């Protein structure tokens, strides 16, 4: 992937997001010239860059969409849901292709076919309208000019002239089409070009039975003749009239046109004057140069400079001196350079307002790792400074060392925070695609809902934001699919037809609270209980003992919410256990509250950054291990009489619940002396995936704030450990991945 392609990918993604936002705003709030223009320009730029990186299929679709939007811009075509849907679908397709291009450096093999279909759909929207507004003529595409060059310069009768673009479907041979015979049937064929529609694939991938041709021809035939020949494949053929049309449209001044053409024209005039050899054509030479230059200057709305040139021409006529015109043109050329630059700056300024620097994620990560190691180094200095105090006594030296350590400590902490800040992205990035999700789902489910988003400015670590998309998508989908009632049902129960889904984020200290709330029918705890019973999730007595609130939480258990199991229960559907797993992997918690008939709210409580973790240091089997604090619910010192044996397993009762006890040393296969069953055991109660387990350890040491280094090299595949860090005395500490340990 070269730099150009990388630039293309990032720019395209940004443009797609922006155009999506604008399209939906236009659909919602109606025609807005500024927005439409922005959408149009986004598609235009997308098309252009697709051409630059040589993705013709992508350019084809975007070109069709651009034409459609041009019609919207010119108010020849109203903004309808159908139109917005087509445009959005086009963006989806492009976005999928960009992903494919990023991953494999090429579009999928069927891209050409897809592009054709999409372009046809878009063009259909356009031509429908054209019929109604009574302008059947399509502007002639660029290839017509190239094909015309093939026609020998013989005089042809001034009859009708048509250009045809015929792209047989890949499967046309199986439909009984014979493209060659069709082309051969065209009367008065003047020019023909046959080219591959998509670049030929490598030989092993080539399907000799698929037609990959684009056939273009110019012929002196009538539309009726064409219609007859191509009657069986009208969808694959486009016909353009070449005869002169009489629909004059005044060419206005090209104020927005690029200044490059103007520059070129002026420079050419100067060159032409410099090329003068004889004196007898001098008059025509500088006269035409001045006229051409003045025309161009006026066309580009530089009347001031045009007058300057015209004045020079008058003077040149009077004095018969070509050099006056030449000097004037030179002046103009140098004058053009400066104001044009100013123009460029003006157009660049909107981008500058959101000034940002793109940095490769890997660089930030390496900076982040370095700063993590710096913290570890600093921790050991703190340790040393405590050790040295009794040695040097209460003197200046001890105080200075302590002071220096404190300064270093605060600076490094600050620096670490600043680096963490680099990884922070606003949640608005995450929320951006949700209006689209809700819109599409509403159309599909025939429901009406409005999505409100709050707290998009809250920031969170990139890793967290990236992983949150899927769970949020699940929650929003479920809310719409199962929570929100159909409009008539809502009306009957006295609710407004337009349902409301809220997506809200708020920062609470170093936690992020996300809430997905709907005003739908709510979750019926009785139905959840019944389902849990049916699935044998828990013993009957336990289910019966659950409060309504606790019963509702059961929607997150794996047994209850797998594929389709709950769709008939009022409330949630598929994959809530997946949602919970993801949230827990991020070190977060999830909870649902619901009132029957009023609505449901799911709250996610997440750490803002995943990088810094609180570690509890424990000893087991003669070694030290780190245990992530966020999993530890409590530590309990057990007297032997509280431990009960069930066959080979041990357990104890904690607040009316039986908690199994596992020896950490045993789980890790560490050789150690058989546990002294008489000594009081020390257990750490951890909560993993909804289960509670007590880990027996030898001792609990201090807690520490640590940056986890991922396991590297040979150890990278050791599943029981999530990473390493360094303890205060400089020893490497393995941090346990408790979830893996018990999975």
């Amino acid at each position: 992937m070269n730099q150009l392609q990388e630039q293309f990918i990032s720019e395209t993604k940004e443009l797609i997001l922006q155009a999506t936002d604008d399209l939906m705003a236009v659909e919602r709030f109606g025609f807005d010239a500024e927005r439409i223009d922005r959408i149009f320009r986004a598609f235009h730029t997308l098309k252009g860059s697709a051409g630059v990186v040589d993705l013709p299929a992508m350019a084809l679709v975007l070109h069709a969409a651009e034409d459609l939007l041009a019609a919207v811009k010119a108010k020849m075509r109203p903004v309808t849901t159908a139109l917005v849907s087509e445009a959005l679908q086009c963006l989806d397709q492009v976005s999928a292709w960009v992903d494919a291009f990023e991953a494999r450096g090429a579009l999928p093999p069927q891209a050409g076919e897809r592009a054709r279909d999409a372009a046809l759909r878009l063009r259909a929207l356009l031509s429908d309208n054209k019929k109604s507004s009574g302008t059947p003529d399509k502007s002639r595409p660029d290839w017509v000019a190239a094909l015309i060059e093939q026609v020998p310069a013989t005089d042809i009768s001034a009859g009708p002239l048509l250009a045809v673009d015929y792209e047989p479907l890949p499967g046309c041979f199986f439909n009984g089409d014979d493209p060659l015979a069709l082309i051969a049937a065209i009367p008065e064929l003047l020019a023909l070009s046959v080219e591959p529609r998509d670049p030929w694939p490598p030989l092993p991938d080539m399907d000799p039975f698929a037609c990959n041709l684009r056939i273009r021809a110019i012929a002196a035939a009538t539309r009726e003749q064409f219609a007859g020949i191509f009657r069986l494949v009208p969808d694959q053929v486009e016909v353009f009239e070449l005869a002169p049309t009489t629909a004059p449209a005044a060419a206005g001044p090209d104020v927005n046109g690029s200044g490059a053409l103007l520059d070129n024209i002026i420079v050419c005039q100067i060159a032409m004057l410099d090329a003068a050899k004889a004196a007898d054509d001098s008059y025509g030479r500088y006269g035409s140069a001045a006229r051409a230059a003045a025309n161009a200057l006026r066309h580009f709305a530089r009347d001031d400079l045009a007058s300057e040139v015209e004045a020079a021409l008058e003077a040149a006529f009077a004095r018969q001196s070509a050099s006056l015109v030449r000097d004037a043109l030179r002046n103009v050329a140098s004058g053009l350079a400066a104001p044009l630059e100013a123009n460029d700056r003006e157009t660049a300024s909107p981008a500058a307002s959101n000034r940002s620097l793109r940095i490769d994620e890997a660089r930030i990560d390496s900076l982040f790792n370095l700063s993590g190691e710096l913290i570890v180094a600093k921790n050991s200095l703190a340790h040393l400074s405590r050790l040295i105090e009794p040695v040097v006594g209460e003197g200046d030296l001890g105080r200075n060392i302590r002071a220096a350590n404190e300064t270093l400590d605060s600076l490094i902490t600050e620096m670490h925070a600043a680096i963490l800040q680099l990884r922070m992205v606003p949640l608005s990035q995450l929320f951006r695609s949700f209006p689209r999700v809700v819109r599409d789902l509403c159309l599909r489910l025939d429901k009406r809902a409005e999505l409100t988003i709050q707290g998009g400015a809250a920031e969170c670590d990139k890793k967290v934001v990236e992983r949150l998309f899927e769970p949020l998508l699940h929650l929003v989908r479920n809310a719409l699919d199962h929570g929100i009632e159909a409009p008539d049902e809502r009306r009957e129960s006295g609710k407004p037809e337009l349902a409301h889904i809220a997506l809200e984020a708020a920062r609470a200290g170093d936690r992020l609270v996300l809430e997905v709330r709907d005003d739908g029918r709510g979750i019926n705890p009785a139905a959840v209980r019944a389902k849990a019973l049916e699935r044998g999730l828990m013993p009957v007595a336990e289910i019966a003992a659950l409060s309504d609130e606790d019963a509702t939480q059961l929607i997150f258990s794996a047994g209850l919410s797998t594929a389709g199991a709950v769709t008939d229960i009022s409330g949630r559907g598929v994959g809530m256990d997946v949602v919970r797993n993801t949230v827990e992997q991020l070190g977060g918690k999830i909870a649902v509250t619901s009132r029957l008939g009023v609505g449901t709210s799911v709250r996610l409580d997440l750490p803002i950054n995943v990088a810094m973790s609180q570690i509890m240091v424990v000893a087991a089997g003669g070694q030290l291990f780190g245990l992530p604090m966020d999993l530890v619910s409590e530590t309990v010192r057990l007297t032997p009489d509280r431990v009960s044996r069930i066959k080979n397993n041990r357990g104890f009762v904690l607040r009316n619940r039986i908690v199994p006890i596992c020896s950490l040393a045993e789980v890790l296969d560490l050789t150690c002396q058989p546990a002294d069953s008489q000594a009081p055991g020390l257990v750490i109660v951890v909560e993993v995936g909804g289960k509670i387990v007590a880990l027996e350890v030898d001792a609990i040491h201090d807690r520490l704030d640590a940056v986890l280094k991922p396991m590297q090299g040979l150890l990278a595949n050791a599943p029981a450990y999530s990473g390493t860090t360094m303890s205060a005395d400089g020893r490497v500490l393995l941090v346990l991945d408790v979830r893996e340990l018990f999975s």
Partner: protein
Amino acid sequence: MAAAENADRRRSVLIVDDSSLVRLYYHGALEKAGFAVEQAINGIEATEKVFAHNFDLLIVDINMPGMDGLSFVRDMRRRKEDIATLPILMITTEAGETDIVDARDAGVNYYLIKPVSEADLIRHVTALAGTPP
């Protein structure tokens, strides 16, 4: 001054090309864009038309039977005031360095290489022939 005289009418263009298809193609495109268009098949016919009409721009091919494009341009530049100073856009398949130098020497104001798309044609012609006020 020429521009001021022409201010009250549509811009008018003469296409000089031996290919009737090319003429037809340019003619349609230019007329659609609001230009008055005349055609000539070579330099001889073009010279006649130039004296009979008031053009704002000549579009000239190089290779034409009868009188070729470059001879026509050289001849134009030595005519009387209004005709000698007509802007000339050369559109041709000759893409060599020497062809462009020859055209410049002859007094061509701008040079395009075929094929020229409709959009490009209109863009260049409107710039060189000027905008009606």
